[in-house]
């Protein structure tokens, strides 16, 4: 078994981290356990539920399906990095206003997926939001209020 530790340098939410990791360490475990960024949640560990979604060099990625060493040199944004100087991101505000979350376990993944969606498509239709979020599972809300939240945030971000 190769448990040789490797040195990596990762920028997370604008902060640079230097750590030693086992090659097999999952990025999700690295963020949660090694960096204490417990906002990224793990719901399935096989890449379906989307709770662990982070921005990896600007694109969404399942942190449960990547190794931490793959992130060497990368820039990552997690849910902790969305609010700036204590000001909620319009998406976070949209979720708050529209009851886009209940238990909040899936929410970090939805926020990150919605972030990427709105960067790509600032004026999405409802159907586009639904398709854009179909890689994330929520078991509490029935999705309606999540979709409302994203549409509301999109509108505010455009104005």
């Amino acid at each position, binding site marked *: *078994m190769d448990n040789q530790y490797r040195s990596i340098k990762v920028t997370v939410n604008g902060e640079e981290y230097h750590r030693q990791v*086992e090659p*097999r*360490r999952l990025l999700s475990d690295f963020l*949660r356990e090694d960096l204490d*960024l*417990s*906002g*990224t*949640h*793990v*719901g*399935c*560990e*096989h890449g*379906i*539920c989307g*709770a662990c979604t982070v921005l990896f060099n600007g694109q969404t990625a399942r942190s449960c399906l990547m190794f931490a060493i793959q992130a060497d040199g990368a820039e990552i944004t*997690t*849910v*902790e990095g*969305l*609010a700036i100087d204590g000001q*909620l991101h319009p998406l*976070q505000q949209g*979720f*708050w*206003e*529209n*009851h886009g*979350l*209940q*238990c*909040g*376990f*899936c*929410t*970090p993944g939805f*926020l990150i997926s919605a972030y990427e969606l709105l960067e790509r498509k600032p004026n999405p239709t409802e159907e586009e*939001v*639904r*398709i854009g*979020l*179909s*890689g*994330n*599972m*929520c*078991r*509490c*809300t*029935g*999705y*309606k*209020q*999540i*979709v409302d939240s994203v549409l509301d945030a999109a509108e505010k971000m455009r104005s």
Partner: protein
Amino acid sequence: MVVAPPKTKTAKKEAQETSKYVGQSVKRREDPRLLTGRGTFVDDIKMPNMHHAAILRSPRPHARIISIDPSKALAHPGVTTVLTGAEVGDKSLPFPVGVVAPFKYYSAAVDKVRYVGEPVAVVVASDRYVAEDALDLIEVEYDPLPPVVKPEDALDPDAAILHEELGNNIGCHRELDYGDVDGAFAEADLILKERFVFPRYSSLPLETYAVISDHDATTGVVTVRSNFMGPFSMHAVTARALNIDENKLRFIVPSDIGGSFGIKSSIYPYIVLISLAAIKAGRPVKWIEDRQEHLLASSCQTDRVAYREVAVKNDGTLTGIKSKVIENVGAYLRAPEPACTFRPIGNFVGPYKVQNVRIDAYDVMTNKCPTGPNRGYGCQQIYFEQERMMDHIAEELDLDPIEVRRRNLIPAEEIPYTTPMGGIYDSGNYQKGMDLVVEMSQYEKLRQKQEEARKENRLFGIGIATGIDPSVSNMGYITVALPPEVRAKPGYLPKSGSAESATIQMNQRGKVSVSMNTTPQGQGHETVVSQIVADELGIRPEDVVVIDEFDTAKHGWFISSGTYASRFASVGTSAAVLAARKLKKKIIRLASALLLVSEDDLVIEGGTVVSKSDSEKSITVKRVAGTAHWNLELLPDDIEAGLQARAVFRFPSNVAPDSQDRVNSSNTYGFMAEICVVEVDRDSGEVKIIDWFSVHDAGTVINPMLMEGQIYGGALHGIGGALYEELSYDDEGQMLAGNFMQYVCPTSVEAPKLNIGHICSPSPLTPLGSKGAGESSTETAPAAVASAVADALRPLGININELPLNPKKVWTLIHEPQPENN
């Protein structure tokens, strides 16, 4: 007529103007922490010196364990200890359960495995990766036994027996008889029969089970941090299995649980298993279940086969029901099972007036995962059967399915209404609810649309379902599982009731904090309590701090505590109301002593206690509070120092089951009526929901925005179960849905939009008139979908008596000839 939940922004504005918060869509105070990744879930907690557990599980459905050798695992670097099933048998006791059948259930397989995924051994190591490495090093030898998988097979005299000491696979069997069933059937104009199959599925929370157990060898206290959500009767079951006194088992539940929907009430066997591992390891041990483990071996609702026979008059009146039910509770009948069979006993007839009911109920054990509470617990199954029979009656008598239901609804003037099984429906107006859903859906136009669609050879269906939503279980209902003669024995302790408490305190500067112990899992309890307390004390919600973390060592709690059976909106809120009122009374009393004015003459207005007869006489609440904390010299002897109040709410109408097995199994009873419109794709078998109308009566709605969220979430669990989700097994007992690619959950693309309407019949039993709403459409959605699909397929002569209606099943129904008994 359609009462749409108010929009957040408007509601917020109104709330500011009127200073009344109950009934407003107040934004959730839980959200900012959850939106910024700062919630506290169990897996976010780290303890000093904590190690990590991984569980070795059975790959076989039914086998004897010949040998188990952990030596290679123990020698693996980083491994602290290994706990085997045999040790579990030595160090713990079987779990108690409320049936007479003498089988033994431990937190791991002791000598035999009885389902795929059953724990066989636990590895504790410095790190989870190492613990999982070591699982592969444990050598287990099995001697396979024939499996039993389907509910009816378990009753076959030739079937393999799971628990030899039992002699059969029956965990519980009760025959319940209410009214004159034989008379009703003898006088019936029409008798209809049907066999139903209801699948095994789970509302499946996104956060899996999580346990951190820590044993203090100096005191013997076991402290468990977990996402357990009640009922805390399971705390007693856990303590018994660990063979420790209940005061030495401390349960702590953090403020955030990542969904549960009943599923996490069945975490307690893992609390025992991980606690045994922690005792052996001599340090705190954390176990986080993975998704495959969750699908294989956590909990789910039963799959069941039911035979239903109804006696009907020519005018469509339902006069009698005979129901034979075979519930598959899996490998071990695990508490609170067989509650699946008895939880809906009081509301078994739904909103219908039928008086004569016979239920022949079996809870059988098979080589599948043990079951437990799942959102809607027991109700979706009976409403599926009930509503399909209503459609059959309509078809047989050539009546409209809405009309048949209307003719059987309990009239509003007869409420409060006692069902033949002893349920007491506290308030409601079912005709009004039905009228509203018909009006909202423009039902006549829907039928015209259907006619046009059928002319075009399209499969267009309209489904209808109604149901009664029971909330706040009477803990006594479960004892209907025991025969009356057992319950009548002298040493037997009868069980009844349901209670909850809230604690409130005002500090020396007049600020308020409330402590709840309701184990919320996303329902927004902190927000709701702040709304209620603000109204009661005439302050703003933002001035109320609410902490909702459970700690059995610090809180006053009850066997019935927890958030399940839609308890919070009825019983938790009521406790908060009573606590606030008690505090207010104390403030007035103290002000009366300080002002020398009688209590009757005092009111609290805008933060000041003032005399109604002489407005010169007043004192600020802040000064009263300051005195209560700082200047005890001024306190009359009979007033306690400080400003704290704890209140307990309990329902007066809860008694133990009587000798005829009648019981008011819940406390408040809501109502829902659904109309679901579908189109079935003939070529793919896909069912597309075109439209959905859903009417609810949950009494007073405290926060309409949160209620809307509950209705949506609940409905999608029902729809998921009706169309996609199934914890399926093959004939050999192997699980076929071990990941999210095989266990298919609806996403935002499949989730329909609902048209929601409300009527309000306040409960006379709660201070605010509120009832539970969290399970409502979960219970009726499967019936509504089945009714709609059956309606769509009627031109093809196809009947629907089985779920889920996934594309494969529907395609097969359309394109392949059916066996006789379908």
